[in-house]
């Protein structure tokens, strides 16, 4: 029996390696379904990446259709008393149809990431690392020092990290993530002051501007406030960037609600950007998502999104809807299959594409 489980696990992990490990991004619907804050499961207080003790237990015992046998070796994430590690591997197959273009199929290793959290002073001072090691050359995505107060009510982190803004969705191509430019593939360098107490979670960040690829010093200030209740949560975020290309102001509200087996997510973001050659633009993106827990370890996700790239220009909006089925057959292995339909202005073929995809996700 033990050998069978070991073989199944190895098969799944090998499959993940052969296809494309899809990053260990966050899944905020799980937090909404369970009434948790991000910090309940993740080392990073703002969510995503390496899991803490409870996150590993949750992944091992609550998420999968089947748990491993009692005598099977368990994974705690702790390599030593001061070092916690994890990984995330994602592979995918995608078939895309763009009008007036040949159908394309892609198989790719989306990413293989390693995480580490080193406790310099247990529960007080630590170093967090998020390193992408494939595809391509190794790349540090996050690397920061974090200082907590004794009760973990306050923290200060400095270095390279993802800014907090709205839901940390698994899908980094979601319109709300693209409009804000803040996602789990766009780290920034700066400092973050965070507050985690009772039902509140708040962050204030001062950073160098995500889009800044020059030696020029830029300034981005970002703030987020979230109020979490067992059955619902409300959040608001704002960000301001000053650059020589122009200034950008960003605001967003987001909410989650649990109704029985369904977790609802909603986010609305608005941006004002005066860095365009033909003048300032006000842009909008919105997301509505339903996550239906069909059965233990299975989720059906329906998502509707809209983006208006310039509120002053009529009839330029584009939309996307998605149907995604997710199953976690075993601890630390997830399969995802879905369909996305894009609708935009008829003269732009790429805005009217549709895609089917299968993703295999392995994580520790």
């Amino acid at each position, binding site marked *: 029996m033990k050998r069978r489980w070991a073989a199944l696990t190895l098969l799944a992990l090998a499959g993940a390696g052969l296809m494309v490990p899809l990053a260990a991004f966050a899944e905020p619907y799980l937090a909404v379904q369970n009434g948790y804050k991000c910090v309940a499961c993740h080392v990073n207080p703002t969510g995503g990446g390496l899991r803490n003790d409870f996150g590993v237990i949750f992944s091992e015992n609550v998420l999968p259709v089947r748990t491993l046998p009692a005598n099977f070796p368990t994974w705690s994430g702790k390599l030593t008393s001061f070092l916690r590690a994890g990984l995330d591997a994602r592979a995918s197959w*995608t078939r*895309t149809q*763009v009008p007036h*273009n*040949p159908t*394309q199929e*892609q198989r*790719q290793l989306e990413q293989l990431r390693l995480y580490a959290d080193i406790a310099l002073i247990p529960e007080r001072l630590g170093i967090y690392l998020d390193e992408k090691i494939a595809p*391509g*050359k190794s*790349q540090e995505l996050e690397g920061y020092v974090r200082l907590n107060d004794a009760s973990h009510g306050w923290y200060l982190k400095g270095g390279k990290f993802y800014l907090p803004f709205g839901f940390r969705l698994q899908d*980094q*191509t979601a319109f709300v993530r*693209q409009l804000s*430019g803040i996602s789990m*593939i*766009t780290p920034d360098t700066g400092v973050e002051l965070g507050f985690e107490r009772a039902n509140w979670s708040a962050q204030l960040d001062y950073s160098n501007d*995500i*889009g*800044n*690829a*020059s*030696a020029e010093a830029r300034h981005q200030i970002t703030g987020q406030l979230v109020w979490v209740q067992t059955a619902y949560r409300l959040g608001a975020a704002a960000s301001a*960037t000053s*650059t020589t*290309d*122009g*200034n*950008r102001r960003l605001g967003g509200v987001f909410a989650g609600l649990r109704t029985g087996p369904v977790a609802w997510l909603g986010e609305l973001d608005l*941006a004002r*950007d*005066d*860095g*365009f*050659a*033909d003048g300032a*633009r006000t842009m909008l993106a919105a997301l*509505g998502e339903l996550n239906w827990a069909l059965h233990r370890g299975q989720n059906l996700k*329906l998502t*509707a999104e*809209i983006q208006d*790239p*310039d509120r002053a*220009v009529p*009839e*330029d*909006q*584009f*939309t*996307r*809807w998605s149907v995604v089925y997710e199953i976690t057959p075993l601890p630390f292995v997830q399969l995802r299959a879905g369909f996305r339909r894009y*609708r*935009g*202005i*008829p*003269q*732009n073929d*790429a805005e009217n*594409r549709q*895609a089917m995809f299968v993703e295999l996700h392995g994580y520790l």
Partner: protein
Amino acid sequence: MLAWLSACSGNGQGLDQGGRPLTSGGTAGGVLTADFDSIQHNVFTPICTTCHAGSNAPQGLHLDAANSYSQLVGVPSAEVSALLRVKPGDPANSYIVQKLEGHAAVGAQMPFGGPPLPAATIAVIRQWISDGALRSPVASGIGTRFAALSVVPAAGDFLEAPPARIVIAFSQELDQTQIDATSVHLEATQSDGRGSVDVLPATAFVPIGNPRTLIVEPAAALSAGRHYRVVVGGVTRSTLSSIGGDRLLSSGNDNDGTTLLTEFDVAAAP
């Protein structure tokens, strides 16, 4: 939900492919050809500016019509600074091609979140780069006067860092047998243009596969805080010729037998 979404997407009336009003300078695009304007209107504007525009443009790269050429051609990539985003005459070593084809060392394949560009579209971009990555289409061959069409760095540029090379695109194929160590001079003066003129050792060569481009590479890294000129001729009275025998036409900046190709400044080190 589907009906609501369908009703929400724009009908595109009065807009170009990039969703901008036709009356404000947008164009209808047309058939994709291997020239910059066509690539801008058929690829960069409708596909890339979804993200690469505005003050939040990823990697500081703006691909709207007003900025894309100056931020692509001869400009080091932000992700892999050893590679130019577009290296005239060398598509394989142009970072934009590596990103579009999905084998760049860093980051995701472009367009991010969308399907890769069709191979035929990438082939057109490759061809444009092979042809010298000119800003404007050039009628090749007979009847076109032999002149420099674009130079990177361009005349009057003020650069934050010294360029590794100077890239000059011509209207006709160069006669490579006429190019030697005296053909092109790289000169440096003080930042105000005064003082003695230093002629810097440099190599001029025509890259394989792109006979309309001349690349000038300094033998040593250029210094910060100086003014640079690239000239043809001078004491030797040598010049450049096309394979048809046409001599390089002056751009009107002749001075003592030289033809000025470009002059630029490099900022002083901080």
